[in-house]
Structure formats: structure tokens, C-alpha cells
């Protein structure tokens, strides 16, 4: 509580303590969405910069971690929005051996392409719910939306992905 009061008053030491305490959590959360180490680091700093700027509006009765995660999610969505037009497929780790790696690679690339066509909000909901398998309640809290909204976004993301993939000749 003292730290939060200090942050609200602009105390840099309090901010540093909170930063060191929560930077890992914020980074990990952003990393799940953007999946790029360098970008996740930049966005972590942007998140804390926004927190510092908005510190006077922070309710010291609330949980700092939840607030930080919400700001981080918005920062990640803003990043996806701004990077959307010049987007490239994310770097991939080598995949498991499959009977026909060429076909598997082609399917994977089509899935990535279809995914990149989703709106930023649908992408964030889909990657957190389907790829990272985070609980809907957790995603809802991070996005500041009711659970029902997240369910709807995931449902719409799946429907759009299926449609895109069918157009590309992949029948899930």
C-alpha cells in the first residue's frame, strides 16, 4: 500500500520497486501475445511508462498487478494495430518431425496468414485462449471486459479462421 501511495505521489523509488517486482509478469504476458523477445521488452517499458504517466488515476485500493496487466494488454493491442500493415510471419522454432514436412509447413504458413488477418482484438483473445489456454476469466480481467465478450471474440476468431482456411484449401 505504501508503495502504491508513493507511486501516486510520483516517488521514483516506489516506482522502481514496483517495476522490478512486476516487470517479469508484464513481459511474460506481453510475450504470449507478440511472441517476439525484443518487441516484448519494448512494450514492457511502454506499459510502465503509461502506468507512470497515469499514476494519479490509480486506485491504491486495487491490485497493481491486475492494473499493469490490463495496461500491458492495451499496449500489445495498440502494437498489433500499428504493425498490422507491415506484418511478417513470426519466427518459428523447428517443428516436430512429421511424415511430410513440406505439407505441414505449408499448412502452418496458411494458418499463420489466416491468423494475421484477424482484427487485433480477436487475435489477442484467440492466442490467449486457444494457444496459451489461459482461463477466460483471466483474459477478461486483462482486457477489462466481461467473460461473455471474450467467449464471443474467441468464437468469432475461430469462425473467421475456419472460413479463411477453407478459402486457402485447408479444411479443418
Amino acid at each position, binding site marked *: 500500500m505504501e508503495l502504491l501511495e508513493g507511486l501516486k505521489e510520483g516517488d521514483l523509488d516506489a516506482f522502481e520497486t514496483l517495476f522490478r517486482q512486476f516487470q517479469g509478469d508484464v513481459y511474460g504476458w506481453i510475450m504470449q501475445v507478440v511472441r517476439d523477445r525484443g518487441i516484448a521488452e519494448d512494450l514492457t517499458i511502454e506499459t510502465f511508462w503509461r502506468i507512470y504517466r497515469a499514476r494519479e488515476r490509480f486506485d491504491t485500493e486495487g491490485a497493481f498487478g491486475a492494473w499493469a496487466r490490463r495496461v500491458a494488454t492495451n499496449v500489445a493491442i495498440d502494437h498489433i494495430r500499428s504493425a498490422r500493415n507491415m506484418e511478417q510471419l513470426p519466427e518459428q522454432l523447428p517443428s516436430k518431425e512429421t511424415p511430410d514436412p513440406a505439407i505441414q509447413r505449408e499448412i*502452418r504458413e496458411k494458418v499463420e496468414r489466416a491468423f494475421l488477418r484477424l482484427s487485433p482484438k480477436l487475435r489477442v483473445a484467440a492466442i490467449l485462449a486457444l494457444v496459451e489456454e489461459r482461463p477466460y476469466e483471466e483474459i477478461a480481467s486483462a482486457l477489462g471486459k466481461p467473460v461473455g465478450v471474450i467467449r464471443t471474440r474467441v468464437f468469432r476468431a475461430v469462425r473467421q479462421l475456419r472460413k479463411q482456411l477453407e478459402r486457402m484449401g485447408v479444411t479443418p
Partner: protein
Amino acid sequence: MTHGDDKEIQRLLKEAFPPVDRELRRDLWPAMLGRLEARGSAVRWYDWALLALLCIWMFLCPQGILQLLYQL
């Protein structure tokens, strides 16, 4: 996620986006501090706006400059 089709989409997505390392490998505080210092010393937009208004006022009412100097 109850339908088989949805599970299949999920499987495809998980294959396309393999697990990432979520561990932060370095302390970001020095970079954060740099950001705070850089932004702290930057001239804010309203400072520029104020300066622009002052210049316009001095251009339109040059006799006001003397009054201003007198007040200072």
C-alpha cells in the same frame, strides 16, 4: 470449445505458434530510467503552444512588449 472442428482449429493454431519462452532474461529498469529521463526533459506540446501564442501576441501588439518588460 466443444466442437471437434474448433478443437482442430486450436490444434492448427498451436502448431503454428509453438510455445514461447516467457522468462525475462535481463533487468529492464536501466532502459525504463532512460525513457523517463528522455521524456522528462522533453519540451511538452503545451509549452510550444504557449510560446507560439506569445510570439503571435508580440507580432500583433508590438507595443505590448514594452508593457510586458515594464511588468517584469
